[in-house]
């Protein structure tokens, strides 16, 4: 009895709880949940198919074995590198299996059949991605290593799409239909997000500095910006349509420049307004955290006001300011999606078209690139903040 108890506790100690949970979830998802959904055409209701039903016998067994292997290493190994390798292998394997399933289920030359990932497939990808991020977090990679990982992931994704792996998948069918406009919408999306954040930085940094220097103004300015932040995005787009529309009517030049009640102009203005608060607040907070003794010493040694700001205060406040930029950039990349509602363009165009046509794959064609873009921005700016804090403390 004592022997078996100690054996049990020994095993219990060796099992990684998070890994076990993710692993069991992955096995359940792989065995019981539909791996793909197969439709005769875009509008027809779909037939769920499990791994065994969707793939040739040998491939299916290999896929299930891979899931079991990843689950086992997640539950039993505490070495982050091994766990990371297993998770990456899992994601890669699922992606390959998905592409293969679409190929197998699509009769040659048939352009109507739709094969899209099922719940089980999504769940497997999410669980393995969680496992990968958990392992990465335990490895505590430096900023450069994280950017490297991001670049490798992007490269792998590009290679997968370029090789035609997913060409028979429903979402790529939607892409093929929209291929001519996809680049334009992507550019528009990035332009709106980066442009609004850039403009907000140009205005917000000086306003933040002003808030720091004149405490009496700080309360009023932050209150006003806070108020803007509480307006729902769709309402703000609507509110802006009125004055911008009036402007376009009153000033023909404005209309010629593309400023109008609908379209990118109100979207850009609204996104700019949303971005102001975090930038102004973080600039003010960041400057407020700079040691007063350092500023006093700098002035006392004969730095001019501009030199104190540019050489001492701003460099020391920079990590907090960049954190603010990260917040608004990620926020605005998401918000641009809503801008499509008023004709602002961007990936949101596909989301709203998809919603209108109850075509989930078209929604995904807009949503997935948006998430990827936001994720990329978050990783890059986090790494930048980290790099800044490593040199300046």
């Amino acid at each position, binding site marked *: 009895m004592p022997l078996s108890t100690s054996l049990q506790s020994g095993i219990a100690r060796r099992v990684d709880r998070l890994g076990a949970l993710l692993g069991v979830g992955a096995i359940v998802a792989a065995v019981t949940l539909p791996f793909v959904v197969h439709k005769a055409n875009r509008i027809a209701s779909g037939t769920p198919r499990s791994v065994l039903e969707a793939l040739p016998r040998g491939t299916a067994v290999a896929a299930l074995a891979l899931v079991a292997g990843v689950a086992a290493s997640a539950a039993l190994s505490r070495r982050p590198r091994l766990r990371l390798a297993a998770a990456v292998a899992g994601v890669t394997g699922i992606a390959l299996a998905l592409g293969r399933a679409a190929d197998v289920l699509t009769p040659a030359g048939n352009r109507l059949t739709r094969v899209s990932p099922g719940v089980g497939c999504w769940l497997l990808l999410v669980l393995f991605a969680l496992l990968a991020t958990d392992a990465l977090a335990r490895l505590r990679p430096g900023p450069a290593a994280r950017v490297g990982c991001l670049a490798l992931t992007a490269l792998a994704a590009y290679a997968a799409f370029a090789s035609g792996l997913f060409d028979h998948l429903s979402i790529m069918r939607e892409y093929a239909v929209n291929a001519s406009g996809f680049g334009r919408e992507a550019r528009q999306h990035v332009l709106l997000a980066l442009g609004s954040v850039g403009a907000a930085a140009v205005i917000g940094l000086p306003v933040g500095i002003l808030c720091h220097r004149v405490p009496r103004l700080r309360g009023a300015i932050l209150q006003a910006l806070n108020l803007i932040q509480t307006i729902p995005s769709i309402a703000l787009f609507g509110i802006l349509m009125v004055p911008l529309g009036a402007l376009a009517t009153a000033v023909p030049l404005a209309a010629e420049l593309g400023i109008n009640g609908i379209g990118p102009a109100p979207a850009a203005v609204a996104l700019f307004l949303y971005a102001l608060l975090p930038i102004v607040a973080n600039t003010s907070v960041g400057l407020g955290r700079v040691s007063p*003794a350092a*500023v*006093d010493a700098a*002035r*006392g*040694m*004969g730095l001019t006001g501009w030199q104190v700001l540019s050489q001492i205060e701003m460099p020391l406040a920079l990590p907090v300011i960049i954190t603010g930029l990260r917040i608004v950039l990620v926020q605005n990349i998401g918000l641009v999606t809503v801008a499509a509602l008023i004709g602002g363009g961007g990936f949101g165009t596909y989301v709203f078209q998809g919603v209108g046509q109850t075509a989930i794959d078209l929604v995904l064609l807009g949503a997935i690139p948006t998430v990827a873009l936001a994720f990329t921005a978050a990783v890059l700016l986090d790494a930048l903040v980290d790099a800044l804090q490593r040199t300046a403390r």
Partner: protein
Amino acid sequence: MIEIESLSKEYGPATVVDGVSMSIAGGSITAIVGTSGSGKSTLLRMINRLVEPSRGRVLIEGRDTATRPGHLLRREIGYAIQGHGLFPHRTVAENIATVPRLLGWQAARIRSRVAELLGIFQLEPGEYAAKFPHQLSGGQQQRVGVARALAAEPRVLLMDEPFGALDPIIRGQAQDDLRGIQRRFGTTVVLVTHDMDEAFRLGDRVAVMTQGRLLQYDRPAMLLTHPADPFVSRLTGTSDRALKLLSLTTAGDAAEPGAGEGPVVPASASLRDVLAALLWSGAAAAAVQRPDGSPAGRVTLAAILARGRAG
């Protein structure tokens, strides 16, 4: 060297510094003491115009400080403050090089000056130049702060509670170092402190301030024996003023000819320390020894008692 003429500072209806005039001799250490809110820091900050005077003027080497842009004036005056104020994102060497860089010194000259100062402050350049302030101990940070203030060889050094953040043992060491460095460079030091012992230990002259006014500005001994105001005697403390007085004279200065039996004391020891040694050993006289080991005479208990008497 520094002439302060009827200097006042008002913030709205409040007068923080009220018509202070004083003359600070070149190459001396002047300690400005007072309780918090006495205006001592404001007075100091008006010398380098971090605070612009409301009235009155300051002359340094005969030149009115108001005739030049403030930041150019400040580059010629050393400035060290409590909590060192080092720039956390710059290395020790970069911190020390701040003013020389502003003045446009050549890189080689800056490098050699930084190395020289680190050596003077017992910080091995090879080890410390590239470190960041957060990697240093409190005492080392304070030394770098003073080294930075001295980097451009200023004739005047202003210090605002420079040792306030240090523990007593390190503070004593830092005060001795400052004395030594001040003598070595002949810098004129104006130092603000709320610590009377620090003022007496460092100050050639001590200025006592309260409520913006200068009550007394004199040699430390005069503050003890001839306080100009009840506040001065309260601040200097009445219970141990005899001992404070003794602490102002060294054994070397008080030594009289003759062979000493009893304990041997260094010439640099204060009479307060000699008295303590005599009380401890029960002897009536101590032998004074020069740094080179040669005898410098003796100090008797009776002589010490005579010096500690009022008047």
